[in-house]
């Protein structure tokens, strides 16, 4: 086994195909570990990790914490809402104060794109980006690809459509990078107002019609409509959005092949996908959550092995 080419995981853009393969291989081992009667290994018992979340998160934060605990790391978690950030402390000061308590790794979510990159240039710790604004969410993209690999055997050559609010989505950007790096073909589908202009420059095509997109693809990754990031109306009504871009069982059954349905969560049931689709055999949404722990264990383990 080789090493990662990077000391931080700031985004998929900064890593290469070998890194992804190594992370997946390591995650295979950890997936076996988390299905044991006792789901813990002692590898990281001398590593301390701070989870700093300046934005709300349930799944990602729990998943990271669980991954760290399964590796026996010491974990401190911190939400900006209850912190001195409210008193006006800068990001570097906040993090350096935490690092003075002998912390080796920082997992950070922040509303500003580039926050993780900025931190990696200014503090001495291994940084894992757990989402920075609408920029990247690398561990989500890794677990999405890992789930596709698990379900379909491989990612190379597969056709994936990312549906919905691409404009506000860090999951979309990281997924596009990760999928293309592994040789998959990517389309995006959604209302024009939620598709970034110039997205074709990333090598993806835009398909405005949902039915056509679904007929083309092997996997549909349904993004959440991020109402909290919308300061103006991007579509007339939720009802109209779900009629145009929501997947229901009737639509799914009318396709001539069985496609895989993914969703990074949290689901707006009845908006992007209906409940019967979310809970169907074709959906791998809960597998994604399980794989998330294995992927994050692999990322943390591999980065920790590079800490001097």
């Amino acid at each position: 086994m080789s090493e990662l080419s990077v000391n931080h995981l700031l985004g998929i853009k900064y890593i290469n195909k070998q890194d992804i393969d190594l992370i997946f291989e390591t995650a295979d081992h950890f997936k076996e570990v988390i299905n044991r009667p006792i789901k813990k290994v002692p590898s990281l018992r001398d590593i301390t990790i701070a989870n700093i979340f300046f934005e709300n998160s349930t799944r990602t934060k729990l998943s990271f914490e669980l991954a760290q605990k399964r590796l026996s790391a010491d974990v401190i978690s911190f939400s900006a809402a209850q912190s001195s950030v409210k008193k006006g402390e800068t990001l570097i000061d906040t993090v350096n104060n935490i690092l003075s308590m002998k912390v080796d790794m920082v997992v950070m979510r922040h509303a500003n794109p580039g926050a993780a990159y900025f931190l990696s240039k200014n503090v001495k710790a291994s940084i894992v980006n757990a989402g920075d604004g609408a920029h990247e969410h690398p561990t989500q993209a890794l677990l999405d690809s890992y789930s596709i690999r698990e379900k379909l055997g491989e990612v190379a050559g597969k056709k994936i459509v990312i549906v919905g609010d691409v404009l506000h989505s860090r999951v979309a950007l990281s997924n596009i990078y990760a999928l293309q790096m592994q040789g998959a073909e990517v389309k995006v589908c959604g209302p024009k107002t939620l598709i970034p202009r110039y997205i074709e420059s990333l090598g993806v095509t835009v398909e405005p019609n949902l039915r056509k997109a679904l007929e083309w693809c092997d996997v549909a990754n349904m993004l959440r409509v991020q109402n909290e990031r919308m300061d103006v109306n991007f579509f007339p009504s939720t009802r109209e959005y779900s009629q145009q871009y929501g997947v229901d069982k009737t639509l799914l059954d009318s396709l001539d092949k069985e496609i895989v349905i993914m969703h990074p969560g949290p689901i707006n049931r009845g908006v992007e996908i209906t409940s019967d689709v979310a809970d169907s055999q074709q959906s791998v949404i809960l597998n994604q959550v399980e794989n998330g722990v294995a992927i994050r264990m692999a990322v943390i383990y591999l980065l920790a092995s590079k800490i001097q």
Partner: protein
Amino acid sequence: MTQKVLLTSKEVNIILHRLACQLIEKHLDFSDTILIGIQPRGSYLADRLKDLLEKEYKVPNIALGYLDITFFRDDFRRTNKPLEANRTQINFLVENKKVIFIDDVLYTGRSIRAALTAIQSFGRPSGIELLTLIDRRFSRDLPIQPDYRGRQVDAINDEKVKVSWMEQDGEDGVFLINSNK
């Protein structure tokens, strides 16, 4: 680099038969006993012994698993070489079973220390024994000794004991390798 033959293929074969007989003497029908090959190199020896026990000595249905100890090692971040993980395959609980760890070479004892911790993830065995093909004397860092040994070998720290297996390396044999000469 010099290479000295410690055991020929014929000698390895005789030793495997002896070890199999010693196991039968102690564990009879193996109904409560589980063989665990320590990954990566112990798995070949474990496969051989299971095969021998089943085919030559007619002991049916021997439970065999492979245990990878990578994540339980005590040298994580202490060596320059990245630790390489292998597959763990234990499809049963070891609760109240007699476990026999099987490895090719016993050197510092640290791998076995890691294995003793790793196996706890699969339950609480009623007892654990250790079988190794080669026992390197005077080299232990920990108070760990084998219950069944193929051959005791004296080797200095610069020397490496390599066990070859037909299925992996094309021949059976044990060699003493000195890379300084």
